[in-house]
């Protein structure tokens, strides 16, 4: 394997990890506030559909992004209504949201475009274009650093850079702001936050709104940047891989970057080498595809470092009277 191939695989990994990273950070906000969210998949799917539809109709990827966020937020609101206001089971609500998105996207897509649930292919400004960073072309011929800068770092869509910028931002919000402190507290011990006179309900709604926005960006990225249009079930389990990455990262932003990069890399390698020949054994692509899930189970089992979820996660908060 030569240097150029490695750069290509890494470049592909960066593209593939972006939706995972955004969805993983989305789940991070929600789960750190004590609201489990297994509906990341559904929210991304809904966002991908609304983003692609609006981008096709208006011809603007940015309006598509707005629509993606709106579509994802609507599902977040249902999740909030079920799990915060009516204190229902957060896991069941997440399952329902996944099915709702899976059914509605095809139903509406068929109605609007009549293509069996697909949207027409997006062209031109309806997609996010690749940004060439300054001096990328000038530096291309410099050995080692040149290709890394020109191929790997430059030449992605704005959403990729946004996703990477979200990592330090999330770290800062969680660990250096009042909102972040309260968010973490409400996920560990909501009663203490309530005693301090801060509304648990409002904080948790804020958290799932942020979760909805980030899932919306992730879905819009899938449909208007990574591919050109919406296809039925196009998230293909990415929401669950993001969930796995979140556990892998032990609910921390910088680790989320590492975990989603690892999973993106696995996908990139599986795409490039369907049957990876390691000399002694040949690894089938199915194994590479299942590896994120297997790794997560191993991490969850606590054999390699223990993943402890936020203490109040999954529990609706009932104020004592």
């Amino acid at each position, binding site marked *: 394997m030569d240097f150029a191939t490695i750069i290509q695989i890494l470049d592909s990994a960066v593209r593939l990890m972006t939706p995972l990273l955004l969805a993983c950070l989305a789940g991070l906000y929600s789960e750190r506030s004590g609201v489990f969210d*297994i509906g990341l998949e559904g929210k991304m799917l809904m966002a991908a559909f609304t983003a692609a539809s609006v981008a096709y109709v208006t011809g603007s990827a940015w309006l598509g992004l707005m629509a993606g966020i709106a579509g994802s937020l609507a599902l977040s609101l*249902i999740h909030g*209504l*079920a*799990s915060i206001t*009516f*204190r*229902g*089971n*957060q*896991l*069941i*609500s997440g*399952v*329902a*949201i*996944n*099915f*709702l998105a*899976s*059914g*509605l996207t*095809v*139903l*509406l897509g*068929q*109605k609007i475009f009549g293509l*069996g*649930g697909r949207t027409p292919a997006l062209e031109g400004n309806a997609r996010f274009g690749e940004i060439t960073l300054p001096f990328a072309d000038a530096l291309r011929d410099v050995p080692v650093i040149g290709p890394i800068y020109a191929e790997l770092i430059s030449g992605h869509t704005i959403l990729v850079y946004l996703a990477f910028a979200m990592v330090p931002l999330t770290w800062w919000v969680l660990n250096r702001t009042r909102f972040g402190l309260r968010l973490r507290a409400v996920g560990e011990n909501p009663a203490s936050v309530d005693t301090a006179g801060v509304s648990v309900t409002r904080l948790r709604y804020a958290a799932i709104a942020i979760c909805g926005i980030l899932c919306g960006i992730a879905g819009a990225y899938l449909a208007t940047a990574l591919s050109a249009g919406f296809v039925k079930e196009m998230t293909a*389990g990415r929401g*669950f891989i993001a*969930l*796995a990455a979140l*556990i892998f990262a032990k609910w921390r932003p910088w680790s989320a970057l590492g975990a989603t990069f690892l999973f993106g890399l696995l996908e990139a390698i599986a795409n490039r080498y369907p049957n990876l020949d390691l000399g002694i054994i040949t690894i*089938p692509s*199915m*194994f590479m*595809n*299942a590896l994120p*899930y*297997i790794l*997560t*189970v191993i991490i*969850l*089992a*606590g054999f390699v470092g223990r993943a402890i*979820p936020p203490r109040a996660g999954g529990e609706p908060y009932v104020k004592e009277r």
Partner: protein
Amino acid sequence: MEKMPKWADVILTPLISLLLAAAISALVILAIGESPWLALKTMIEGSLGSSYGWGFTLYYTTNFIFTGLAVMVAYHASLFNIGGEGQAAMGGLGVALVLLYLPLPHWLIALPVAMIGAAAFGAAWAFIPAWLQAKRGSHIVITTIMFNFIAAAALNYVLVNVLRPVGSMDPASARFPESTHLPSLSDMALAFGMEWGKNTPVNVTFFVAIGACLLVWLLIWRTRLGYEIRAFGKSEPGALYAGISPVRITIIAMLISGGLAGLMAINNVMGEAERLVLNAVEGAGFIGIAVALMGRNHPLGVFLAALLFGFLYQGGGELALWTSIPRELIVVIQALVILFTGALDNMVRMPLERLFLSMRKRGGA
């Protein structure tokens, strides 16, 4: 004091949830420019209007009874088993291995052996998440989701690289021997001289499913183990104090749950396809969640809810055939049923409780 009479809790709340789900579904159909009334008529005619329709409805019902019971048993131990999909897929592998590699001269012998294979593989697939939950505290919802994906990948590998007959391009196993063919209900009706449900997949497994409902009812409410499962589900510290081992109950409940999900394979793999194909479960594992919630975690409720979803499934297929409504409408209905009976249960329940309280006050005064 009970806030509402038991009948209201058991019948009224699921019924109202169902009506809400139906109303919103009707709105969705209106929104895509179709007539809900016509859709309902098409669905009823297609699934219940003929013995052909019934044959498919009952076939789907059989699948959903097994996966619904699987979710239900785990739920009584307050474990949420989302892994029915993977466990049923693995049950299919168990059935295929038994039928392909063991000489079984007659279906009466093949059926129990295949049942053991299906249940053993399903239970084995549920065992690891159960053990991890019981011993290592890993959340069973997450691990069972992960195991669904791992099962799909494993099955894909086995079908492409191991079970696929030489020269075949299709990722599917060879056909099962003719001697293991399960009699379909139409064969049985014909034996009594009746023409019923020709060319439909419903088979003798339907009766196995009804038997499973009875056995699960006996298990949960009439045995010591069932009592322990329910006690553990209500309160873990309470169960511990009563000398019930959480590890033992978690693992046993999940083994039974996985076994029931696996048993579905004798219907779809052995009874219908008669070979193992890719993605044979087709989401039935997830429908089990809706069925268990709708059926209020009681075998009779599960049976009725499975019948309802069997109707929806077959009716949805007919909709796609005769109208321009895609069959994904069923997925939306399924989502709404899960949402209203599961997650938004309190939204339905709270006003009802208030209503009953005020009625009681007026009655008492």
